[in-house]
């Protein structure tokens, strides 16, 4: 199957601005799915609200564009109800780490089998450039006119500390790495997180005078260092850099499978009122 076959081509072109990194990241997800040869009919892609979350409308799967911050909670219901499906969340930095932060850490804690792609453009793009929990300190946003006073999350550290079993970071500049990390994340049974740094030339770039799309990608490249390369570098060369690459990969019991196992142990026919009216076999997983 060709890469474009995973798209709803009649829904293109997309709504993103010229130079936005979200297209490269969406493309990376599709290429990872293609490499793994996943069945289009057994993949559900869920998103929240924001620029990133519009990606799902272009993808030819069962797709769910939910409410702001709630993608992972919807996805939790889908995965638990149908553990056989591959469930992917596409979200942004505001959607995932501000309004949706609680769902993110709890899904990680449960290690439920959801692959979460965080398209981190470090700004609220859809509402035109307010600072997010991922905006670096000091940068300008429309609600940070004097520079962002707050400190940003290290999302990957948050994911690891919360219990995610596969965590990696890449960017719209590092497309082959993004594909590779998403491919591995999709193969992990538990909760996986790939943070993909995405340039927003329209709002973050313009407001902070970073430049156009190309300068934005250079800006991302210059800040990042691969975790493997970093291991061989002196500390002063790594200080202040954003680590990219595979940051965590440790297997642990996956929640929906553990619950299914519990059901297997308990499940039996009842002769009392409760349960009698149903056939156990009617449950599809």
């Amino acid at each position, binding site marked *: 199957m060709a890469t474009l076959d995973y798209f*709803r081509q009649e*829904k293109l072109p997309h709504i993103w601005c010229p130079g936005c990194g979200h297209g490269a990241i969406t493309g990376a997800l599709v290429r990872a799915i293609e490499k793994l040869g996943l069945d*289009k*009919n*057994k993949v*559900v892609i*869920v998103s929240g609200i924001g620029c990133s979350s519009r990606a*799902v*409308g272009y993808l*030819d*799967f*069962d*797709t*769910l*564009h*939910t*409410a702001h911050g*709630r993608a992972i*909670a*919807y*996805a*939790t*219901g*889908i995965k*638990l*109800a*149908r553990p*056989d*499906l591959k469930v992917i969340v596409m979200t942004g930095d505001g959607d995932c780490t501000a309004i949706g932060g*609680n*769902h993110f850490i*709890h899904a990680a804690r449960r290690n439920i089998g959801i692959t979460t792609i965080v398209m981190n453009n470090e700004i609220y793009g859809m509402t035109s450039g307010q600072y997010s929990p991922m905006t670096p300190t000091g940068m300008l946003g429309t609600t940070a006119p004097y520079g962002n006073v707050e400190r940003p999350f290290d999302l990957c550290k948050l994911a690891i500390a919360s219990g995610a079993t596969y965590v990696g970071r890449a960017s719209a500049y590092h497309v082959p790495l993004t594909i590779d990390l998403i491919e591995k994340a999709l193969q992990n049974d538990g909760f996986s997180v790939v943070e993909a740094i995405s340039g927003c030339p329209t709002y973050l770039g313009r407001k902070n005078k970073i430049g156009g799309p190309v300068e934005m990608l250079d800006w991302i490249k210059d800040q990042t260092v691969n975790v493997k390369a970093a291991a061989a570098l002196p500390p002063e060369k790594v200080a202040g850099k954003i680590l990219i690459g595979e940051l965590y990969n440790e297997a642990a019991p996956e929640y929906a499978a553990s*619950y299914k196992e*519990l*059901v297997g142990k*308990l*499940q*039996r026919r*009842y002769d*009392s*009122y*409760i*349960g*009698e*009216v*149903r056939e*156990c076999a*009617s*449950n*599809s997983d």
Partner: protein
Amino acid sequence: MDKNVKLMQGNEACTIGALAAGLDFYAGYPITPSTEIAEMCSEELPKIGGRFIQMEDEIGSIAAIIGASLTGKKAMTATSGPGFSLMQELIGYSSLCEIPIVIVNVMRVGPSTGMPTSTAQGDVMQARWGTHGDHPVIALAPGNVRECFDLTFKAFALAEKYRVPVIVLTDEVIGHMREKVELPDPHSIKQTRRKAPTSPAGYKPYAADPDGGVPLMAPFGEGYRWHVTGLFHDEAGFPTSKPQVADTLIRRINRKVEKNLDDIIDYASESLEDSEIVVLSFGSSAMSALSAVRRARKEGIKAGFLRLKTLWPFPEEVVKSLESHAKRIIVAEMNLGQVVLEVERVTTGKAKVERLGKVNSELFHPEEIYRAIKGEVQNRDIRGNN
């Protein structure tokens, strides 16, 4: 003893009603006075191949049941005031995207944290208008423990049939009160399931006649590859900004309920035909109201009783019909006047509509309603500790 006769509380009956209706999936967050429902679901669902999850909050809970429902499962959550407030945004999502879910709200005293272990009926208007925008919603109010079974069962049937969120609006007294309940023979029960398409070819998830048709709903994971969005969408399910498409959509989803009032609306009455004074009530307040009406009748007062089992859509026709005989309609509810506003809206002024409210966390005493029937209540509110 018949195995279907049991002593149980309302929350238990809600759970059994849900299981009888084919509940597959429960997600919830602990909150008094609804928690027994979650506890019982956590125990029973895995035994019958279902799923239970305790989410991190009530927003996550309703999100999870919407997700589960999209896979074809029958899904429910239960909560009380503060949690119900948190769920409002996604009640609208369920309404617009036409995803069947059932929400049990065991009402407690509010606003805010209020009085968690005490009863109230203050969420009537919230159940109708709590989420933003014009939207269809159904709310049912059980008046006893057996009805918790019946109306939760019915809630699933209506949710599946009309693809709407259905709210079971009970209260702390109904939820925790224990009664002897005779459950229907399990073999007599007929479950309702949403209509599904038979083939992905040409599937349009939101195609239906504009006069309130209910579109066919495909489960996720079965090859339909359809799109769901809380943005206004066209028949194919994709976002639209066309005024005509938006107008058709919002009118159609509301008509689903408006066109099926006979199927949805239910009520109970006693001594209504020749009554001059009608006490209209619902939920636990109606137990006290019925007792007061019977006492008045015994004394020769032409009192009648109407108990609403459906609160939304509002049972306009039966309430309007009261004016053919009633001179006074007393609306007894544990709030400062919510259902009474609807009664005033649908009547013409021929009968005097009287508000009888109580918000001190105590159930109505039948005496209080009896005194109202006799015209002895000076204020329209029953005050605390009187």
